[in-house]
């Protein structure tokens, strides 16, 4: 990274998917790695099944907790169609990590709107590296579907040059003793994905 370069990661998904927790963990990791970091999200109404985003920005000195449109380096979407909602924020060469799980919005549930079917191919045609997999499936293999957010962090870790030992030590600190092994396994699943 050059002297003043600030990088932005955008987390996107649906309320209840553990996005805020995951973005908290990544901020701890970035801080441990010696960077300045800011993150931003909006609580409140979003808890009720609405869209959730979290901006994470890091570098030598970070001012804004919100990324300027067109500058996000990495999008990590916890739900498939949500990866399409904030594309105005992304750089053209952004890397995209997508959980291929589908959560239908009410209009799709009621049969009055359709769920987009071209998500991954669209992303591949327009952005840099696109990694897509079913994080819920991998999380179940790790022992609990709730670890899907840590699986996604594993995938994200391959895109960041932060020492693996820092990732693991922060993950260990972030969960109660009995859940550590499962979460480390989930993290590894994400790296391999």
């Amino acid at each position: 990274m050059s002297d003043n370069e600030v990088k932005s990661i955008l987390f996107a998904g649906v309320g209840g998917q553990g996005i805020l927790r995951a973005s908290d963990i990544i901020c701890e990791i970035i801080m441990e790695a010696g960077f300045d970091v800011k993150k931003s999200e909006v609580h409140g109404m979003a808890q009720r099944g609405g869209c959730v985003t979290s901006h994470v920005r890091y570098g030598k000195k970070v001012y804004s907790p919100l990324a300027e449109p067109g500058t996000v380096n990495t999008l990590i979407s916890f739900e498939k169609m949500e990866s399409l909602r904030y594309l105005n924020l992304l750089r053209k060469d952004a890397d995209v990590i997508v959980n291929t799980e589908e959560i239908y919005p009410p209009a799709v549930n009621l049969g009055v709107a359709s769920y987009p079917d071209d998500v991954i191919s669209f992303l591949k045609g327009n952005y840099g590296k696109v990694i897509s997999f079913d994080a819920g499936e991998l999380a179940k293999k790790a022992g609990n579907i709730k670890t899907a957010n840590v699986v996604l962090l594993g995938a994200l870790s391959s895109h960041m040059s932060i020492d693996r030992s820092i990732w693991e030590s922060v993950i260990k600190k972030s969960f109660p003793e009995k859940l550590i092994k499962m979460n480390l396994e989930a993290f590894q699943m994400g790296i391999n994905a």
Partner: protein
Amino acid sequence: MKVLMSGNEAVARGAFEAGVRFAAAYPGTPSTEILEEFSKYEGVYAQWSTNEKVAVEVAIGAALAGEKAMAVMKHVGVNVAADPIFTVSYTGTNGALVIISADDPSLHSSQNEQDNRNYAKFAKIPMLEPADASEAPKYIKLAFELSEKFDTPVFLRLTTRVSHSKSVVTLEEPAKYNDKTGFIYDAEKYVMVPINARTRRLEVENRQKALKEFVETFAENKMEIGNPEIGIITAGMPYNYAKEVFPDYSYLKLGMVYPLPEKMIRDFASRVKKIYVIEEMDPFLEEQIKAMGIQVIGKEIFPFTNEFDPGVIRNAIEKNSPEAVSPYKESLASRPPNLCPGCPHRGLFYALKKEKAYVHGDIGCYTLSYMKPLEGLHSCICMGASIGMAHGMSKALKEKGKGKVVGVIGDSTFLHSGITPLLDMAYNNSDALIIILDNSTTAMTGMQEHPGTGYTLMKKEAKKVNLKDLITSLGIDNIKIIDPIDQKATRSAIKEELAKDGPSVIIAQRPCALFKRSNIKPKPALKVDQDKCEGCKACLELNCPPISWKSGVTKEGSKRKGIAVIDETLCNGCGLCEQVCKFGAIS
């Protein structure tokens, strides 16, 4: 030690470090976490008050006793508390008093977008504004120092983006609590009858004068001289957005947004060629600076509405920069927030809709019921307004309104500001029906206690108000208590009470589906019997998240075009859809 904290956590920490041990608040996004966090520190007293006015009065009382006291609320809460705030500005505070206003540019979770910096000028109270969590502890400390030094209440203004974004905070050793409490009798200072208030009024102007001198040397008003071609005057979070896109320009960052340092602003203006004033919402700084006769560019190019981001500032200043757009051109189905699976409000609004009444709503989760398909509300203004509005409409409509005007209000909101209007309704013999949606908690802001829950913020057991006794004592004779998931009981109660002359209250009582102390045990998820479902979509009218439509599942001898399905992982088994299905297909 450095830790990552939200602005709200950092304010709580800073207050504790400053030796503050007393705080009162009413929950409201984006301010709620400040008191929740503060209450966890050792040796503090923190309480949820019934509303913001009471919270400020409780804090004033503590300050008069010598404490450093803090009252915390969202922007619209300051409206509720405005009465004591304007006059405590006259009396001064003895100990120290800081009022925290968390504004919500972009209305992420509010009914309006008011700019509470105007309160500072209006009430002649100094106001500080940190730009992020890193600055917040220092600012709350400074706010208390100012309050003590100038014997004045002080505002600390936050915005959603400061409250709810995280940055690196350096923790400091907490100051030792210094007990200065005791009685101070000074009636001329604290009894605001006209003769005393006239004297205090002059003191306010003297204080204003002293503060205006002080701000010229206030260390958090900072000049950063870079490129002399362009100077930016800004405060709070917009400083960070501007600094991000234009790091080389010159800056005057104001830590105190009222009163303004006029000499310093003139000095800054003399050092740069062109000045932009960057502020969200109202031209609060801009108008004052223009009134000094200084030429600046402000709301000619920057928006009046919504919060900013770095892009908004770049686009306003660099007029020809191309806006970043999404290459995906199809429309995406939106995800509006919805009532939770098993939410008691869903049952109430489903039953109420059938009466085709005009429903005045209030502030809480149930406001979400206004959307399709429930379409449960026809008005919603502010906390507690539903009752007075229902009463006024019913009186205006006379016979036309009989059996057709309803007000709905949550339990926490009722206790916040619904009691006095209900008394008004009873006394003036209204024909409206009020339904209290009693889910045993303050759900929207995240399960805060209130006088109806039986517990305090400090997790102590408390005397629980009996809603029925309270309402009876206000003069309401017709009171029914029902479980809103029970459709038969709910419909007949609504029908009966609408038909009666005089005011009625229905208490729809069932704990929030997310409430931890709920006495309702979760039941197994319900299932749709594929053979019995006729595809009538009646259950879909509930807009319950687990219920969805699966088209193309036909059946011999039936015209159905698909079936309803229930997602077992989401369903909490409340049984509402079972009662709605005419074909007995859900069980």
